[in-house]
């Protein structure tokens, strides 16, 4: 009996036992479709997460911050100037693995324009910051090297602040805004930044619309009495994959300057975002549900097949009397389940595809059933069917012909 013939027999058997076939199919279809749906949504979601990381600086962006001083600082620790603007300029000059170095001075000040006033964050930095964080002005311009050199009292407003203080971004351009008691000229307003993991989730980047950027040198000149200590340093590796090497070089250079490792270097983006974590968990739960229903489908198939083997003991006895070998009986039962598994996998894939489309449409989530997912679904369904069929097939094949014929 050839393989093709075994499969044809399997198909015929599946058709002859339509009731059991339909029940087995149901289990396989439910299991396969939920796995397909989950994997498709999961794939879409991880693409969203990647987009998010790219949005907040991308792969290859690292942030340097002061490490908290120890309880009993050593002399070397006390001698260090900590993270300074001088460090930033030194790295810009020496660190060959970096494409951009943006110093960051961070503080909160009172904003005032016309009758409106509120407290909010201010970031003192250089033009490199815009390059690293993918910031584009909606009107006007971003900070320039000249602004930094001249310690100019100019500010670039986030979209929300321009809106709050002056009504519209256009109206803000060229106007004066009072920040921390000093007067600044608005030279630019940034585009509104928006990123959401799903329609119902909020704007992950809203904080970026609620701030102003001033030259880092101006910040020191106006607010710190020329103390050039930084809150953070944002660095961009020359290549997205070079972040590791860049991190090593920066560590070496800064340790040389500080005489001690009193700073922490962390990659930007990834990790720490609770919404992204939530979606991962959400997907994981559905994946578990899919696997469980597929296994349940497999158990259903195994049970149905076992029952049908018991029901057909005399039939197997007769087949053996007509010359069927144990292997041929085994192949017959297994071929039947394989045919069912293939059909179940294909139908489950179709249903999963439809389900994915529906969920993606109504929840505005990106999702796609890739060839990889389709293959995985069929293979999984086949495996489950095969494993479920093995034991009943084995039982049928091991029957003794005499006892099988005697079986009432």
């Amino acid at each position, binding site marked *: *009996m050839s393989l093709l*013939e075994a499969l044809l*027999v399997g198909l015929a058997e599946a058709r*002859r*036992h339509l009731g059991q076939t339909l029940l087995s199919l149901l289990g396989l279809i439910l299991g396969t479709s939920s796995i397909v749906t989950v994997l498709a949504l999961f794939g879409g979601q991880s693409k969203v997460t990647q987009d998010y990381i790219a949005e907040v600086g991308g792969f290859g962006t690292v942030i340097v911050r002061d490490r908290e001083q120890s309880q009993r600082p050593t002399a070397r620790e006390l001698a260090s100037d900590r993270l300074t603007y001088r460090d930033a300029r030194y790295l810009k000059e020496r660190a060959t693995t970096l494409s951009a170095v943006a110093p960051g001075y961070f503080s909160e000040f009172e904003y005032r324009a016309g009758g409106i006033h509120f407290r909010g964050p201010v970031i003192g930095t250089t033009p490199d910051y815009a390059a690293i964080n993918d910031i584009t002005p909606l009107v006007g311009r971003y900070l320039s090297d000249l602004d930094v050199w001249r310690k100019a009292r100019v500010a670039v407003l986030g979209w929300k602040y321009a809106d709050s203080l002056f009504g519209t971004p256009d109206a803000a351009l060229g106007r004066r805004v009072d920040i921390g008691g000093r007067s600044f000229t608005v030279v630019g307003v940034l585009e509104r930044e928006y990123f959401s993991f799903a329609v119902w989730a909020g704007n992950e980047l809203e904080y970026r619309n609620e701030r102003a950027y001033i030259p880092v040198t101006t910040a020191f000149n106006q607010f710190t009495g020329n103390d050039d200590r930084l809150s953070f340093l944002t660095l961009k590796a020359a290549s997205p994959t070079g972040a590791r090497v860049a991190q090593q070089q920066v560590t070496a250079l800064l340790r040389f300057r500080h005489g001690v490792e009193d700073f922490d270097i962390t990659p930007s983006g990834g990790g720490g975002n609770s919404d992204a974590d939530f979606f991962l968990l959400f997907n994981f739960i559905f994946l578990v549900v899919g696997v469980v229903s597929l296994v349940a489908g497999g158990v259903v198939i195994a049970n149905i097949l076992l029952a049908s083997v018991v029901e057909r003991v*005399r*039939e197997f*006895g*007769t*087949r*053996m*009397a*007509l*010359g*069927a*070998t*144990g*292997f*041929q009986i085994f192949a017959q039962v297994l071929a039947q389940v394989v045919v069912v598994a293939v059909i179940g996998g294909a139908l489950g894939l179709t249903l999963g595809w439809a389900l994915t489309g529906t969920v993606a449409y109504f929840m505005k989530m990106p999702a796609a059933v890739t060839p990889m997912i389709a293959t995985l679904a069929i293979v999984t369904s086949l495996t489950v069917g095969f494993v479920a069929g093995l034991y009943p097939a084995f039982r049928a094949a091991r029957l*003794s*012909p*005499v006892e099988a*014929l005697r079986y009432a």
Partner: protein
Amino acid sequence: MPLIEALGLTKVYQLGRVEVRALRGVDVVVERGEYVAVTGPSGSGKSTLMHILGCLDSPTSGAYELDGKSVAGLRGRALAHVRNRKVGFVFQTFNLMPRMTVEENVALPLQYRGGHSRQARLRRARTLLERFGLGDRIGHRPDELSGGERQRVAVARALIGDPAILMVDEPTGNLDSEAGAEILRAFREVHAAGNTIVMVTHDAAVAAEADRGIHIADGQVAA
């Protein structure tokens, strides 16, 4: 050389703690072209003898040559091949596959033998069915046939592989007298065509159809 030559067949099996000696040294010789009836009361061991002669089971001890080949020591797959090529079975309860058509049922032994296309198998099945007057029934299911028709389908199935011997178990047991007479007529014709038949029955009238009888009692051949 006889078709069946079995010497000193014994069969012992374990039924729970009890050791059942179903056959206690049986000698059977059947020549080619013979029509033999094996008779005996139930529990005499005649069914066990038929199972061993039909290669469904192997003897505990003894020698058995079927068509010039020793089969006493064969098991599993090898025994299945012998059954497929040398033996045709007809059962009391017909044992047709209920969800297959009549012609598919008849062709089944050839499917297990391999080497025939589906078309060739079904063509041969149809030829045999016409010979048994069932030419208009080939597409029917067994449950659409009368008992006599079903038994003739079973005979056709037993013959499709050109077996050396036809093993028949109580062929009239589930038939009314008219259908029973009809099937016995069919066996006479099959015998007349040169086939060897071994028939197990406890019905003396049926046994009288055969050329000779072998009577089994208490696991031994009675005189």
